[in-house]
């Protein structure tokens, strides 16, 4: 019987790329990054680096046999910079050496001279200079311009949200092993094996079938390995192709933090109009997304910001405009929520300011505008099976928003040194890749003739528990114990043309495909059983490892059945394909049905601020989450708690910005702080709304991303506490609200 990954994890026996034993002759690769944010390369001399006896070679753009281009959506990103550099840390050369120590020493000897050009770091400035990745996109519904005059209050403001470093514990890594006939096996810590396969094939100018990408598991990813695992795999492959030796490339933390992109900072302007009851009549918003020096996935991320511009609310008149701005920082990329959190933060800020203008409590205004069944989103889709109000009401019933608020007010009246704050945060998140074509997946199921089962899908296990879910789905179809099933690596040779494991869709798509494949094999097995038992297949099923006839166990066990099937020359393997039905989106009208369904939930957060020191604690987050029917409860709970804490981190501690030269200020683990054991909420009370979902496998709902946005509540609870101390505060909504910013605001030294 096979135990699952958890056993391996706690024994330190699960392997990540850097744990694979080095093949004989393996070289170490180390990228050389640009020290400048923008400039022309005037000299790149690798001669000095070649001196060391252990240094094999140093590769530059000229050594790339195929195309020097890895841009996935827009072709604007070289693998190695040739003439110009566009951000600090941009790879310009690759050192290949016998050891890491030799590679590190050699890297210091590479001479790189750059004639600096002006660097643009601010997205608004980039937009003003016309540095846009694509023309602005606008989602609109109703008529905002006409609506303002019917509003009782109109509030305007500016919102800033910061970058977020993924800080996956396993840094970017790849091991490329040359095989015969100029083919390559690439072990990559990637969410997108096919993306890596394609990029390697283009860089080396070989067909995709010459590149096999294999992924066992990732030590965390969160979007940071959707597109940005690719350069490192390509560089390792380039080194392997060039030297015909295996090449390992593992970024150390310091290089990883500097050389890879983060969650996009956004700078936004909003205008919101409400009627006297607190109903939002009109909402206008403009997003300036700081994309960084190349497109990466920025335009897709921007699109999701537009989809989520109205958060969990129904707004009849909306105009949302978004600019994807090219700047001279490391290209930013996917991160849990994919542009959704940035947009949701803005609508919450707008509601907060609107509620204040109206003199109503924020949660009353939030509640008054929650999505209802059948409401239309600005992109034309209507809510179906909408749970926004249900989650809110359940959370209110169990946790008592009014009681929590009253308790905070009582505390605040009695204490000058500390203030408590409370905020409610409703979440509505659309599930599907917004690029409709990506909503497809495949799976391959083999039943071996000893009865053990091997499953391959396009999904990559990165801690989200997709493999556990796959096992459970396949075990359910076959009616056998999960211990008989092994999830094989995600391998482009076994499952081709995979979509990245992203957008929370990994188990929806691949689980559906695995279910179909298992059902195909199961149907054949039941035919064999029918013959053996002289029964009709319709009477038969497999449960508990035994064939049952009309619910009663027969003599025929799984192993015996599989044997019989094999000896009667039955195909015990199946490959299946799944594509999410009913999806469409028209980018000209910006209308359609881009999502299979939405996930809802409501969280209430309580915080305490130390007004003397500006430090704070999140006391509690209590939430009701719309989970559908859970395939694996412990996994789903872990996703909710983990997502929530990451969201809190984004808005509180996690600060990542650049100096005026475009150099990252928080460039090491000692400077960039993610939540630790101590900084998480003292209480995390997770309640689940379990109601089967008609639009995903086994009634489940995707769970990876939505909980991240509960973290936004922490910011607004801190704001609430801050306002208890400073009622006249009228500052910009800026995140993260670090202890530094908190103290400056408390002291009235910042606006």
């Amino acid at each position, binding site marked *: 019987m096979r135990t699952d*990954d*958890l*056993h391996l*994890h*706690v*024994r*330190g*026996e*699960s392997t990540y790329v*850097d744990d694979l034993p080095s093949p004989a002759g393996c070289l170490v690769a180390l990228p050389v990054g640009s020290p400048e944010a923008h400039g022309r390369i005037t000299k790149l001399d690798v001669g000095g680096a070649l001196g060391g006896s252990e240094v094999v070679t140093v590769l530059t753009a000229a050594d790339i046999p195929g195309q020097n281009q890895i841009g996935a959506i827009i072709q604007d990103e070289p693998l190695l910079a040739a003439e110009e550099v566009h951000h600090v840390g941009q790879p310009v050369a690759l050192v290949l050496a016998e050891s*890491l*120590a030799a590679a*590190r020493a050699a890297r210091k000897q590479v001479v790189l001279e750059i004639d600096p050009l002006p660097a643009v770091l601010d997205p608004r400035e980039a937009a003003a200079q016309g540095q846009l990745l694509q023309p602005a996109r606008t989602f609109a519904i109703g008529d905002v311009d006409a609506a303002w005059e019917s509003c009782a209050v109109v509030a305007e403001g500016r919102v800033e949200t910061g970058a977020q470093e993924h*800080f*996956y*514990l*396993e840094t970017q890594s790849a091991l490329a092993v040359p095989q015969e006939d100029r083919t390559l096996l690439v072990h990559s810590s990637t969410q997108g094996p096919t993306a890596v396969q394609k990029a390697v094939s283009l860089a080396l100018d070989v067909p995709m079938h010459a590149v096999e990408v294999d992924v066992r*598991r990732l*030590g*965390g*990813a*969160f979007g940071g390995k959707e597109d940005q695992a690719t350069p490192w795999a390509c560089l390792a492959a380039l080194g392997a192709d060039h030297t015909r030796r295996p090449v390992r490339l593992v970024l*150390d*933390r310091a290089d990883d933090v500097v050389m890879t992109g983060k969650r996009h900072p956004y700078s936004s302007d909003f205008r919101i109009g409400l009627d006297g009851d607190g109903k939002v009549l009109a909402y206008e918003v403009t997003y300036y997304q700081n994309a960084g020096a190349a497109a990466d996935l920025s335009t897709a991320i921007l699109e999701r910001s537009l989809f989520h511009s109205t958060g969990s609310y129904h707004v009849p008149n909306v105009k949302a405009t978004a600019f994807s701005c090219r700047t001279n920082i490391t290209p930013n990329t996917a991160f849990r929520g994919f542009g959704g959190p940035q947009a949701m933060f803005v609508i919450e800020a707008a509601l907060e300011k609107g509620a204040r203008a109206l003199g109503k409590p924020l949660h009353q205004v939030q509640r008054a505008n929650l999505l209802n069944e059948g409401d239309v989103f600005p992109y034309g889709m209507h809510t179906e099976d909408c749970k926004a109000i249900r989650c809110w009401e359940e959370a209110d019933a169990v946790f008592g928003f009014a009681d929590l608020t009253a308790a905070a007010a009582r505390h605040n009246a009695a204490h*000058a040194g500390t203030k408590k704050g409370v905020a409610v945060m409703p979440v509505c998140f659309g599930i599907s890749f917004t690029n409709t074509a990506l909503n497809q997946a495949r799976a391959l199921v083999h039943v071996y003739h000893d009865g053990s089962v091997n499953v391959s899908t396009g999904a990559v296990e*990165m*801690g989200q*528990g997709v493999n556990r879910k796959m096992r459970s789905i396949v075990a359910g179809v076959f009616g056998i114990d999960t211990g008989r099933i092994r999830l094989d690596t995600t391998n482009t040779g076994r499952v081709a043309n995979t979509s990245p494991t992203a957008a929370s869709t990994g188990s929806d798509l691949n689980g559906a495909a695995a279910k179909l494949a298992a059902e195909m094999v199961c149907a054949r097995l039941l035919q064999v059983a029918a013959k053996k038992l002289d029964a009709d297949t319709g009477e038969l099923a497999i449960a508990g490892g035994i064939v049952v006839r009309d619910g009663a166990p027969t003599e025929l066990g799984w192993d015996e059945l599989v044997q019989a099937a094999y000896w009667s020359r039955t195909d015990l393997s199946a490959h299946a394909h799944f594509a999410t039905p009913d999806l469409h989106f028209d980018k000209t009208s910006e209308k359609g049905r881009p999502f299979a369904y939405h996930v809802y939930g409501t969280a209430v957060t309580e915080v305490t601020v130390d*007004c*003397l*020191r*500006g*430090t704070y604690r999140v006391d509690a987050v209590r939430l009701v989450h719309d989970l559908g029917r859970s395939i694996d409860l*412990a996994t789903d*709970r*872990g*996703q909710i*708690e*983990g*997502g*929530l*804490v*990451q969201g809190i981190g984004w808005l509180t*501690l996690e600060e990542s910005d650049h100096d005026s030269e475009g150099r990252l200020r928080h460039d090491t*683990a*000692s*400077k960039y*702080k993610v*939540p*630790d*054991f*101590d900084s*998480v909420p003292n209480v*995390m009370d997770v309640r689940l709304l379990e109601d089967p979902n008609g639009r995903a496998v086994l009634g489940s709902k995707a769970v990876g991303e939505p909980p991240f946005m509960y973290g936004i509540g922490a910011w607004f609870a801190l704001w609430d506490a801050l306002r208890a101390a400073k009622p006249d505060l009228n500052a910009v909504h800026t995140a993260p609200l670090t*202890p*530094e910013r908190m*103290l*400056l605001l*408390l002291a009235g*030294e910042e606006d």
Partner: protein
Amino acid sequence: MMELRLLLNDRPVVLRAAAGRSTLSWLRETRELTGTKEGCAEGECGACAVLLGEPTADGIAYCAVPACLLPLGELAGRHLVTIEGLNHPDGLGPVQQALVDQGAPQCGFCFPGIVVALTGYFLTCGRPDPVAAVAALDGNICRCTGYASTVRAVENICRELAPHLNATSTRVADLVTARVLPGHLNAAPRALSALAADAGSAPAATLVGGGTDLLVQRPDELAAAEVVFASCRPDLRTITRDLTDLIIGGAVTVSELGRHPDVAACLPDAPEMAARFGSTLVRNRATVAGNLVNASPIADLAILLLAHDAELVLERDGGARRLPLRAFYRGYKDIDLAPGEIVAAVRVRPPAAGTVTNFEKISKRRNLDIASVNGAAVLRVDNDAFAAADLTVGGVAPVPFVAVKTAAFLVGKPVTAKTLHAAADVLDQEIAPIDDVRGSARYKRLAARRILFAHALKTAPNLLSVEAFV
């Protein structure tokens, strides 16, 4: 290169290696013991936690340390236990099982380190206590889980193990019986004493305390250098008292300092300082002298000891001199320490009766973070006026700063909000913080003021109220 003998998990190992190389890279690259992970290589994540065991009179004393900051040379004559060495041949120990039962691991990368750090806790704790056990994970970062499932597991393990753990003297045996440790740990003291002693080291060598600064700041250099270890000098590792002073050996670790009863008695603010210093893993390595010599303007221990007007005992070639710590810091990273001279001990006089001491640290993250601003105060109030004052502030000057003028201003003044606001203005004149990644100069000025107020509020809670300061 140095030849050293150690016990690695269940077997003796002899190796020739650069003594300053990190144990993590050796384990992963040379020994292919890949259960110990690299998440940061600077002591910030705990993915690389290992147990380091040192022979004592009655067995081996273990503690969890970050392998990335552990110089190989420190392994001489020691027992190194990695996650592989904690595994039973098959099945799971109770710590591992409790984590699995809660479905705690997600990507799994951080969990070998968490298992090791928890085991380190059970090896050293009194009665298992979930709060203390979670606190012992203050050096372990997990990016996936949000920690809640691990906390639930820790509560369960503590409950399960409590009846099985007796005195710490039989701890290894108890933990073997409880299956937290595999059987080979019982045999380790004998295996360790069978190792031959190591050769002494070269004279003109870099002195390593815990290596927690050196391995972060100069790893490549250290791997190539001759190094000697302060831990080889048992006389530098004691905490004693004489008639007047508390005497802390230079090689005493911050953990040892934080839990020593004499320290708590003489320097009541030291345990709080220690609790906020780095993480359990770092404190188990970081030494007192290393903190002082490193001369960071924000060094927590330096800030504390300067407020107490501590004195250094410096030693070279058998000779010794004494130097007030306040004279030690001459400028940014410029200290009064001759080549070859070592910090043998720090002498501190316990504050007079009626004195209040307070240590404050404002950092972005409460634990495992360098302060934006820290400060210590030794204050005495008589007849509602400040009778004596010593104040230090970190992060506001090129050196750990002694706020002499502010302290002088306070003495003789009545304990009122007005006095303190005026004193804060004096402080503001005295300090010269700069903008950096730990905060803007503006913020540091404000934080320094607030720290002064916090000291006063603690010293004279009956005379002052917080309203006047927020």
